[in-house]
């Protein structure tokens, strides 16, 4: 399947290199005559673009933005001529989108990013912590110890085998993290990037030997889940509605957005994997109409502020994010303390890993 692509994100860690195009547009005067631009975005940014304040702020700059969602790694499959921009969740799919749209040297922008986290209910988090697979750092937050966790996953550990699980009806079956489809969705692909690193002795998988070493574990992590969701919104909403799996991989922004919109996240514990790769949402203008929108999102103070309110970390915006999330440190690890950022395999290697993880010959 050609939509299995690759990923390279190492450049975009906190305080990383900024890829802003020079902001060339002049301030548009306040006007009701806005131009409509259509975009395809990762589902985790949907609420940002639906936010009435964002709509207003964009209108003030002359834009009416209409969005549809898609798995970031499936965007290149869409009829891109219908869109003025694509806004996948990391930089590699952005390249694929630009290539699929026949663009050369598109002026990409990376307005904000968000780390991946695992959400759990307190019961599940406590069982993990009591069994050395996680460490609680606050009432509603903790660190997922990837080495120990992946060892357990490699041994097909079930919840029943973890002391303390019996008190919770939902904690049965193999312990796994519910991800999205690594072939079509960014968070699923990044999950493989991080876990393969750990499984490869904390080294980026760089060759066939590394693939051979890590693929069996990748296969386990993915096949145990059965059907894979196309985007993080699905498992996240399942969690909110009271169903869903005990451990779900989402973006920190999805949780932070709830908190900052004063919506009760319910009984939620946010576990930050101790080894992770960050996701830099990458804006790709596809037509002239959207050429300046990415830079606007990245630099306009009001839009940056609104992005923070939707849980995103603006580039070079540690102070903004920290200040805004001050009341929510019970859930959020604002400084990403104790979290190790690792590089990602090359596109080709990650593609091979995703294919092996999904089981070639298993999916027709």
């Amino acid at each position, binding site marked *: 399947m050609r939509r299995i692509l690759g990923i390279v994100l190492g450049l975009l860690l906190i305080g990383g290199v900024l890829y802003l195009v020079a902001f060339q547009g002049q301030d548009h005067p306040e006007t009701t005559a806005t131009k409509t631009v259509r975009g395809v975005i990762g589902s985790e940014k949907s609420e940002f673009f639906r936010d009435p304040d964002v709509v207003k702020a964009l209108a003030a700059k002359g834009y009416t933005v209409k969005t549809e*969602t898609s798995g970031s790694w499936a965007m290149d499959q*869409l009829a891109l001529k219908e869109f003025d921009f694509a806004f996948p969740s990391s930089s590699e799919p952005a390249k694929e989108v630009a290539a699929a749209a026949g663009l050369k040297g598109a002026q990409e922008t990376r307005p904000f990013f968000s780390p991946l986290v695992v959400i759990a209910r307190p019961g599940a988090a406590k069982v993990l912590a009591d069994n050395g697979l996680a460490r609680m750092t606050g009432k509603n937050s903790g660190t997922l110890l990837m080495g120990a966790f992946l060892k357990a996953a490699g041994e097909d550990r079930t919840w029943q085998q973890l002391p303390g699980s019996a008190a919770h*009806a939902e904690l049965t079956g193999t312990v796994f993290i519910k991800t999205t489809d690594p072939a079509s969705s960014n968070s699923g692909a990044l999950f493989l990037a991080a876990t393969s690193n750990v499984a490869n002795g904390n080294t980026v998988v760089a060759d066939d030997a590394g693939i051979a070493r890590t693929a069996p574990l990748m296969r386990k992590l993915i096949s145990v889940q*059965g059907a894979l969701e*196309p985007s993080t919104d*699905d498992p996240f909403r*399942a969690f*909110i509605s009271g169903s869903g799996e005990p451990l779900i991989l989402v973006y920190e922004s999805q949780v932070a957005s709830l908190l900052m919109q004063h*919506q009760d996240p319910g009984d939620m514990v946010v576990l930050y994997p101790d080894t992770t790769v960050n996701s830099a949402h990458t804006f790709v203008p596809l037509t002239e109409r959207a050429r300046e929108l990415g830079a606007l999102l990245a630099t306009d103070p009001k839009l940056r502020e609104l992005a923070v309110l939707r849980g995103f970390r603006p580039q070079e915006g540690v102070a903004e994010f920290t200040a805004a999330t001050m009341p929510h440190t019970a859930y959020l690890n604002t400084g990403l303390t104790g979290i190790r950022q690792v590089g990602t395999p090359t596109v080709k290697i990650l593609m091979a890993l995703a294919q092996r993880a999904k089981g070639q010959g298993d*999916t027709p």
Partner: protein
Amino acid sequence: MRPLRRRRGWIGLALAGLMTATGCSADGPAEPERSTYKDGHLRVLASSELSDMEPVLKAARAATGVSVELTWSGTLDAAEQVASGNADGKYDAIWLSSNDYLRLRPEAAGKLSSETPVMSSPVALGVKPEALARLGWKPGEVTWPAVHEAVAAGRLTYGMTDPVRSNSGFSALVSVASGLSGAQAALSDADVKAATPRLKEFFAGQKLTSGSSGWLVSAYAKRGDVDALVNYESVLLSMNRDAKGAGAPLTVVRPRDGVVTAHYPLTLLTSAPAGARDAGRALTEYLRGPEAQKAITEQTFRRPVAAGVAPAAGLDAEKRRELPFPGSRSVADGLLASYENELRRPSRTVYVLDTSGSMSEEDRIGRLKSALTDLTGSGSSGTGQRFRDREEVTLLPFGSKVKKVRTHVVEPGNPGPALDAIRGDVKSLEPDGGTAVYGSLEAAYQHLGKGGADAFTSIVLMTDGENTEGVGAGHFDSFYAALPPAQKQTPVFAVLFGDSDRKELTHIAELTGGRLFDATGTGVPPAVAGGGSLAGAFEEIRGYQ
């Protein structure tokens, strides 16, 4: 029953009918099928249980200006339509209980966008209080193995939809296969194989089948002797509310070892025009808002997906393990094929076929032959596309009297000979004589009375005219009343065709607990399913056999 408007039929239709959010559907002539998008009017292929969303969609229209036209479809059928490209241009969006099966089709990649879960409901077991007491069950403690044990001991019977045609049945099949195989992760072929003997025992307790969860509810109410119902939690709780004290409410059991939950992702088709996708986006946004989420949970007992909106009273908060849906098409299809051909009770099906002289008009006989031949499938037929293994199929053509009674049993592993023989019998049908509807129907019941095998029995009655020969309606009513109780449970699925008498057939379907299907292709029927064509009606009836 909700008024359904007839539409042109097409192969593989699970349940046809249109509902608009404005609720206008019972008056005026049937409109030709819309083939183009009209501004602000979203054409959606949807799961039939979403008929209860009408008030919410009405409010959505008031708030957003977007109206919705829902066309019912089963999960597999919808997957086929989307994957094959048949849905392109015909629908703007799909709104199924789940897209999990659809995503197993590689052709579906690139056809879907903006999948947005709107609400959730697990597939659960609704158990009569007396059965619960008899079994000594505490609702919060029941597991799938406990249900199996009760069924195997002959202490529990239940109704469930056909997994091949309806997602609630499919979800139940996945749940029970997971529960009985002891699978700790997503089901594999080996899990299904290991659990087969126990699954067979489990499905021996299934006394009611249906092509849709809606009809299952009414059939269940009519039967009275079935202990439990497998359906969405939302449907079970709505039943309890709507019964308004008539009949004790069912206790909703979400088995402790896990459930499969439907999340109803409203999903735009990438083939839809930009205007339709804008409309879809506006609708989705509204449905995910707090006001709509509150209305959804309070009116339909589905669980909200928006934080801060409390689930309706009666929705138990205790968590359940979510059982994984199979991750490959081979496992999913293998499970369905096992159910169809091995696990479920076999079918005994009698086709009472009007081959009177009038069937020579308008090539009616040709259409009948073609529709019946479709049911014999082809060498490569997928699950649900031909008579099942172990099925006993009887053709009973009649004119002034019963002309022939020919029975064939589809042999497992070697279905060819029986299917060939059925095709041969179909080919030899000749139009001739009058129309002895009631006498032939009585002969069909007598035929079924002779076999003792444990099976789902049903009669399909197709006639193109009113009764002109032999005994009349009164005679049949007395005949039916005098049948032994077990035989009374054989429903007649009556098919309107040509100039058949709607009143006569409605009476027969209602008396026997069957259902009326429409294959006349014109006119405006109230409360009729069918799809308009004979092939569509016959195909749809398969879900009830």
